[in-house]
């Protein structure tokens, strides 16, 4: 391996500059692919099919500049996890597979004014109470049991529905992307099957890598931005990671199948059927965009309900009102999404409308961007990067290079390193739980011991390295780091 190339078992990456690697165009690739990583991360990324998948992504019609793999990239299905693809909204396409099954899977962080000292001694009660009150796992129901009419309202109105029904306050909307309501959501484009699956899951974590975590802020790297975000060392915050549940999964599947039936010609051009895309301007592209936006609203309501329930749990455990504990939403980010955005592309500085697909990648708009909510426009959009349950999570802010390098995007987490089957061979849930409690004072409670093993800290990449690369590239700058205190999962 020389300094300027990296040979990854048949795929050669050329170093463009520090942390930027390029797979040059060849064959039917429409554009080059780029991987943003240190050599240490690249060594891990090359181990599975991530590089092949990011190459495949470059075959999508209308793909602009590059297909980009984030520092936490790993193999997914079709599009890699940690992938960003900007597809022309006029001449390109939109791809349900490049959004992922869990539409608007994402993370939100809620602040409190509690300190770690105040919380210590209450961890057990808190973790038990959160576990008892926040539905998780398979078949655990939801915070709200609703009929189809209510599902339709949620799909149309997002968090505005939650506000009207006492599950949110006005301030929550102001600290969420699009104020918690995606315009252009069309509930009629979401199938009955999807609604049937979703109606019993409104306000539920699900399983897999989804969780709710009480955390303490261990470091604030940027005092000014930290202050703007209301973060200080030793403070307790809550992080919630989940998505649109069965409703989103079904919506993705429904549209993959529709594309297969209606746009076989486009599908035949693609190296992986899971990249299935509807041509921009087609009825199906419009329908999917309307359905996806509706599922985005559903996921926001899901996280909102869980957050509001968490406030109630804290009220009981700490015997004071949530307002008194200043339990306010810091921000909510999506990391499985496609959004129509205007970007400057090409040497002439043309403005173009693109469907920016971020699958396992987070929007990271810099200070001054008009789409950053007013509360944070001066400092840049908050980006929340969850780590594993034994490592820190990070709060970043959108970096000033993100618009040029990544269509305003950065990483979304640590990124998996080890398969679930291997994790279960190497770890036992009970041991992982006990070690975390005894060595790190992290209290974990899960529906399934197997989930704890599959999500053991050792199965993830080093989140510190992922964030360091994001920060060095100036796509997402480090603001603060947090460490788990209590974790509940499915």
């Amino acid at each position, binding site marked *: 391996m020389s300094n300027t190339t990296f040979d990854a078992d048949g795929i050669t990456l050329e170093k463009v500059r520090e942390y930027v690697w390029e797979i040059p165009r060849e064959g039917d690739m429409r554009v080059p692919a780029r991987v943003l990583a240190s050599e240490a991360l690249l060594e891990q990324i090359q181990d599975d099919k991530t590089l092949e998948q990011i190459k495949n992504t470059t075959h999508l019609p209308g793909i602009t500049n590059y297909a980009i793999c984030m520092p936490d990239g790993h193999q997914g*299905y079709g599009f890699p996890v940690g992938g960003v693809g900007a597809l022309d909204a006029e001449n390109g396409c939109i791809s349900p597979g490049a959004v992922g099954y869990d539409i608007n899977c994402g993370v939100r962080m809620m602040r409190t004014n509690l300190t770690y000292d105040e919380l210590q001694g209450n961890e057990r009660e808190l973790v038990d109470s959160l576990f008892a009150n926040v539905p998780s796992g*398979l078949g655990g129901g939801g915070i709200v049991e609703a009929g189809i009419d209510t599902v339709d309202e949620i799909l149309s109105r997002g968090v505005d529905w939650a506000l009207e029904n006492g599950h949110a306050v006005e301030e929550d909307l102001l600290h969420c992307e699009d104020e918690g309501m995606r315009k252009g959501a069309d509930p009629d484009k979401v199938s009955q099957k999807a609604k*049937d699956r979703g109606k019993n899951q409104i306000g539920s974590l699900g*399983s897999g890598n989804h969780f709710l975590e009480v955390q303490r802020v261990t470091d604030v790297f940027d005092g000014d931005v930290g202050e703007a975000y209301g973060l200080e060392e030793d403070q307790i915050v809550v992080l919630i990671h989940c998505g649109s549940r069965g409703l989103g999964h079904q919506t993705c599947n429904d549209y993959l*199948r529709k594309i297969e039936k209606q746009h076989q010609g486009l599908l035949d051009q693609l190296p992986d059927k899971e990249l*299935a895309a509807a041509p921009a301007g087609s009825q199906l592209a419009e329908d999917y965009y309307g359905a996806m936006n509706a599922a985005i609203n559903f996921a926001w309501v899901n996280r909102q309900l869980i957050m509001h329930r968490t406030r109630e749990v804290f009220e009981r455990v700490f015997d004071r009102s949530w307002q008194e504990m200043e339990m306010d939403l810091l921000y909510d980010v999506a990391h499985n999404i496609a959004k129509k955005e205007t970007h400057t592309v090409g040497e002439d500085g043309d403005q173009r409308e693109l469907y920016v697909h971020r699958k396992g990648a987070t929007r990271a708009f810099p200070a001054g961007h008009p789409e950053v909510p007013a509360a944070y426009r001066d400092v840049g959009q908050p980006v929340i990067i969850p780590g594993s349950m034994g490592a820190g999570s990070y709060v970043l802010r959108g970096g000033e290079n993100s618009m040029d390098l990544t269509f305003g995007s950065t990483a979304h987490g640590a990124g998996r390193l080890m*398969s679930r089957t291997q994790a279960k061979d190497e770890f036992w849930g009970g041991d992982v739980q006990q070690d975390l409690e005894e060595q790190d004072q992290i209290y974990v409670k899960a529906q*399934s*011991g197997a989930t704890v093993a599959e999500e053991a800290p050792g199965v993830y990449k080093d989140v510190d390295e992922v964030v360091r690369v994001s920060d060095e590239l100036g796509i997402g700058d480090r603001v603060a780091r947090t460490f788990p205190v209590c974790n509940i999962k499915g």
Partner: protein
Amino acid sequence: MTRAQGGRFELRDHTADIAVAATGDTLEAVFAAVADGLAAASADDIPEAAGDRFPLSVSAESREALLFDYLDELIYERDVRAALPVDHRVERIETVGEISPGDGTAGDDETEWTLEASTRGVPLDEVDAREVKAVTYSEMRLERVEAGATDEGGWEAYVVFDV
């Protein structure tokens, strides 16, 4: 693992998700084996007797699409019935209309593939089960294996599930 219909499956490593590789003497057997793999990916221990059997039927435009829709239907039923489908039996896979020269793998408007199956739904509160989000087309394979000197051939399938 040998199942009632003679199909076999194995769970395979995949960085974030899980894959099922299955074989069967017949198309019905390999479909049932993939579905049993889906159940195994959802739960390590499946209660022997809990739950009631229920039938399901699926139709699609090609053989691969039929497998995809069958697995999708099982995941859907799991969520709406709050029961994990296990012990899969695929009674019958049939085609209506002309089979395309591509042996049914490419969609043909004239052809419809149908499947009749049954499954036992174990109530989710009686099993320690995890959520498999969805079936994917990524790397999906469904292929006939020619008979060799020591075996009679059959079918092989490989399916990646999103966890």
